[in-house]
């Protein structure tokens, strides 16, 4: 039965009222009196030496306030990287300087060379055209394998090569893994590309810098998923502003998908320029700029091999991946192909021996970093494509082969350093088989064939690690941050609550689901709870939202703070009721004495806390406000099984998705409707990656897919009506809500089943194609089927 409030209820998203009626307050809605506008002059070549940047004529143009070039930032820090990976030889990664404005060299198309601050944006743009820039072009480094060859042109002259790191995981296992391959009855290998993507949140990035000369306070309004992280990185490492003099506000944010986690040059620029010009300075990215300046996602080239014994048990797995870092290290870039990827290579299977090698490579392209799923989609795609290929080579049913190798006992320690606390892969696969109506497939295929079409069916499983992350563990792995979360619960005198959470909502619906949790714990109406986020002056130091961590980590902090509130409220209630604290029970918003009919309402207690006339002042302080910081003891491990059914037009290569089923295990669920919505969005992005999206560069480092004319975003008409189920629930064992997180699952879990289904369709038409790379565009399908 659907509940009508609290945990488990499909409460309507309260934030949608403002989003859908134009009452949101996005960063671009913020306009400060006296503000000037900045236009960034960006490089149109991928690689070159800046021999001359002359702003003399431009500075005389109408409306110009000030023009900045790399030289103005000589004393300013490098845009920092938040994660240091140690390679297989025990050496730390190569870490280049990342200047706010290009300094001596340009290293990718879109890199800012100069910034013009002017009265209007058009004036800034006019002046930017008058800047004289001379660039001595250098050969562009684009292909990763070429980039790491002897004698390759270097992206960074002061590094030894274009190799950022060569990571081996688990290095000690390598010998045993190689031996297992020698002993194998069967080996399947596969080479594949995980296509580069552009995140394309609906709202482009925006930054507004403001500086109060009177008290030396800086404020940055920015489109961020984690304002405290920006405050720390920018304040401490780039601009040298102490945190107490810097406020970062991320108001309503229109989608992030990872690309708004990172600290970008434009944020540092606007903060810096606001003081330098003594004017608020605003930048709003155009869509064209977004394509060449937002961190991209994915871009791995992988060879993966699976060893099996004669009974088809997986005995070892070995991978060799080239991961594109782009021209500079974006905030979390080094962690994505390593700790968010290598640790997931066991997937849902009890493969005893695994070795993962990742070479991270610098190229003359936009920096690459986390995008919805970050590392886990890459792991899932390789593994689930490989298992499918193995099944076909062996002539066995792909589902049966998966089932045979499933992990069935929990907790399970994988050979890649993580321990799954709980899961039930058999249950999600059972559910999936029912949803996908496998029995009816034959009929559906016949119907397609009668129309001259081919029909294919594909499945995959997935596992992900969410609830990022135990701070002491990630510290050992190279994180330069803690990954706890915070919450302050402030109860007002009249009983309403404000929760100030370090998580950030940029579409996820936290204002609704977080309120459900607190309301449920106290037994009051959800509308008595307000969720505040996104302002470093309001909320305690928090790490923000990414990696499906908000409910698992931020929600846990909120639960802990609410528990403290309830404990103190019980003390007050026991005083008011003249009973022992241990006899006080809280139910439906009232405190009662066990076994009696004596009770006080929630509001009586909260009022007493702030009007402490009858109050145990000798024992406890007045007021009712508590803060908690929660540091998880493990990751959470959502998992599931997905099935895709496609129809393929053999004449044109056009693939359409006819059915898509997703059976997920997210542990306990706060708001089923919101969870379904998250899965829908994730599936759209996963299917987009599989069929349509492709960020492509030519060999000169020019971005070919630089607008929506060439970058294919999925639209509603490209997607089927999904069949989504999350009734299989194995609650997380180590957080108070038993939740696992659901934000990335759809994007992680869907690409392999789409590609598996396309290959199945081609096989049914007599085309035994072993692999096809994403995006599976009509042109590629046609080429694959026609040699």
């Amino acid at each position: 039965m659907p509940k009508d409030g609290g945990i488990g209820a499909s409460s309507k998203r309260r934030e949608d009222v403002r989003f859908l009626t134009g009452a949101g307050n996005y960063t671009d809605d913020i306009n400060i009196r006296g503000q000037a506008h900045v236009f960034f002059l960006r490089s149109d070549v991928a690689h070159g030496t800046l021999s001359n940047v002359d702003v003399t004529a431009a500075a005389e143009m109408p409306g110009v306030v000030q023009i900045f070039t790399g030289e103005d930032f000589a004393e300013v820090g490098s845009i920092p990287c938040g994660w240091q990976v140690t390679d297989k030889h025990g050496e730390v990664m190569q870490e280049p300087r990342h200047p706010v404005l290009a300094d001596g060299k340009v290293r990718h198309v879109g890199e800012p060379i100069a910034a013009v601050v002017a009265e209007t944006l058009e004036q800034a743009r006019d002046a930017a055209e008058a800047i004289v820039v001379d660039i001595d072009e250098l050969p562009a480094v684009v292909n990763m394998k070429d980039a790491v060859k002897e004698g390759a042109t270097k992206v960074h002259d002061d590094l030894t090569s274009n190799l950022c790191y060569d990571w081996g995981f688990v290095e000690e296992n390598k010998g045993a893994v190689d031996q297992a391959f020698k002993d194998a009855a069967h080996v399947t290998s596969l080479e594949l590309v995980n296509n580069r993507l552009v995140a394309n949140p609906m709202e482009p990035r925006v930054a507004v810098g403001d500086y109060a000369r009177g008290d030396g306070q800086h404020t940055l309004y920015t489109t961020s998923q984690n304002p405290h992280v920006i405050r720390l990185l920018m304040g401490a490492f780039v601009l040298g502003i102490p945190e107490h003099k810097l406020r970062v506000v991320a108001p309503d944010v229109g989608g992030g998908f990872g690309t708004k986690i990172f600290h970008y040059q434009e944020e540092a620029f606007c903060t810096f320029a606001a003081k330098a010009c003594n004017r608020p300075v605003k930048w709003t990215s155009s869509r064209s700029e977004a394509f060449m300046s937002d961190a991209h996602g994915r871009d791995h080239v992988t060879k993966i091999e699976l060893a099996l014994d004669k009974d088809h048990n997986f005995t070892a797995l070995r991978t060799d991946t080239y991961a594109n870092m782009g021209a500079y290290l974006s905030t979390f870039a080094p962690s994505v192909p390593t700790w968010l990827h290598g640790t997931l290579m066991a997937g849902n299977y009890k493969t005893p021996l695994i070795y993962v090698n990742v070479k991270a490579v610098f190229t003359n392209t936009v920096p690459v970093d986390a995008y919805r799923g970050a590392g886990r989609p890459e792991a899932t795609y390789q593994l689930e494509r490989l298992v499918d290929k193995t099944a076909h080579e062996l002539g066995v049913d792909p589902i049966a082969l998966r089932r045979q190798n499933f992990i069935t006992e929990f907790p399970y320690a994988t050979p890649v350093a993580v321990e799954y606390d709980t899961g039930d892969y058999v249950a999600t696969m059972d559910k999936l088989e029912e949803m996908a109506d496998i029995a009816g497939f034959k009929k559906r295929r016949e119907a397609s064939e009668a129309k001259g079409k081919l029909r294919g069916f594909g499945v995959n499983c997935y596992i992900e690690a969410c609830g990022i992350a135990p701070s002491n563990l990630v510290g050992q792995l190279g994180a330069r941050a803690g990954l706890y979360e915070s919450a302050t619960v402030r109860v007002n005198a009249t009983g309403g609550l404000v929760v100030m959470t370090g998580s950030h909502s940029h579409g996820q619906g936290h204002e609704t689901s977080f309120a459900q949790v607190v309301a449920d714990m106290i037994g009051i109406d959800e509308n008595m709870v307000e969720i505040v986020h996104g302002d470093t002056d309001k909320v305690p130091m928090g790490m923000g939202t990414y990696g499906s961590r908000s409910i698992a980590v931020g929600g846990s902090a909120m639960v802990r703070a609410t528990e403290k509130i309830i404990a103190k409220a019980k003390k007050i209630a026991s005083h008011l009721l003249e009973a022992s604290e241990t006899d006080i029970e809280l139910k439906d918003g009232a405190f009662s004495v066990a076994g009696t009919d004596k009770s006080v309402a929630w509001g009586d207690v909260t009022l007493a806390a702030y009007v402490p006339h009858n109050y145990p002042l000798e024992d406890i302080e007045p007021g009712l406000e508590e803060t908690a910081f929660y540091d998880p003891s493990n990751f959470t491990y959502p998992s599931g099984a997905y099935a895709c059914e496609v129809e393929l037009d053999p004449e044109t290569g056009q693939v359409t998705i006819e059915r898509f089923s997703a059976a997920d295990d997210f542990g306990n669920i706060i708001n089923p409707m919101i969870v379904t919505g998250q899965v829908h969005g994730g599936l759209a992005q996963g299917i987009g990656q599989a069929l349509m999206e492709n960020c492509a560069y030519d060999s000169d480092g020019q971005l070919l897919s630089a607008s929506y004319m060439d970058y294919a975003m999925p639209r509603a008409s490209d997607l089927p009506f999904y069949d989504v189920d999350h009734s299989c629930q194995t609650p997380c064992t180590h957080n108070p809500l038993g939740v696992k997180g659901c934000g990335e699952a759809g994007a992680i879990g869907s690409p392999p089943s789409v590609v598996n289904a396309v290959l199945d369709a081609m096989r049914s038409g007599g085309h035994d194609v072993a692999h096809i790379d994403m995006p599976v565009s009509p042109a590629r399908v046609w080429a694959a089927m026609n040699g």
Partner: protein
Amino acid sequence: MYNFDVEKPATIVDAVQAMTREEAQPLSGGQTLIPTLKARLAAPSVLVSLSGIDEMKGVCKDDAAGRLCIGGATTHADVMREAADHYPALASLAARIGDPAVRNRGTIGGSLANNDPSACYPAGALASGATIVTNAREIAADEYFQGMFTTALEEGEIVTEVKFPVPEAAHYEKFLQPASRFPLVAAFVAKFSDGVRVAITGASNDGVFRWSEAEAALASNFSADAVGGLSIDGSDMINDLHGTGAYRAHLVGVMTKRAVAAIS
């Protein structure tokens, strides 16, 4: 955008006069020109808006020669509605251009003047053997399209009307480029009592063209089978992210065959 003046004439005569101003350019629906201006890829000093000229708008069906005459400033949405009875294939072409916003602003004159190698209207006009009427003269479609983004229009010349002979049967088959949803390749097949015309857009580096082999085959045998065996050389065709020349050449055959199948 750079600064420019705007003129909004109410008659063709006034528009032609306004076009004599230095660096003047016509503005019709703006669906191509405005993005170009925003990207600062064009810098006209005067925009002569055609959208206030009533005599350039609307679909007229009482042409003496039985042609369907469409004013140069008629929007795709209006053609979609008003040509539906008379020339359904053309109405259907208009109905599949872009999205509703594009169709409510974009115009036939703008599309034909621009002659994008992947645009829809050039295929409709060429296959129909349409006549492009300007303020100065009438130009047969076969002479009008002169290569990618190139037409017979002279400096300052305005497309005021397009006259379409209405075929016995016609069909426009469009295969979408996945990102832009312009045609990756599209075929317009028009069957007249005295012959068949087949125009292909999206494929060639030279813009829209007539596929004469298919026309000849269909003239003697108007059936999908007649074109099923034909092939066309893709080595000079557009080769980009979305498809090679060989793939486009293949699609030319498939789209033509499907267009024929839809009407035979």
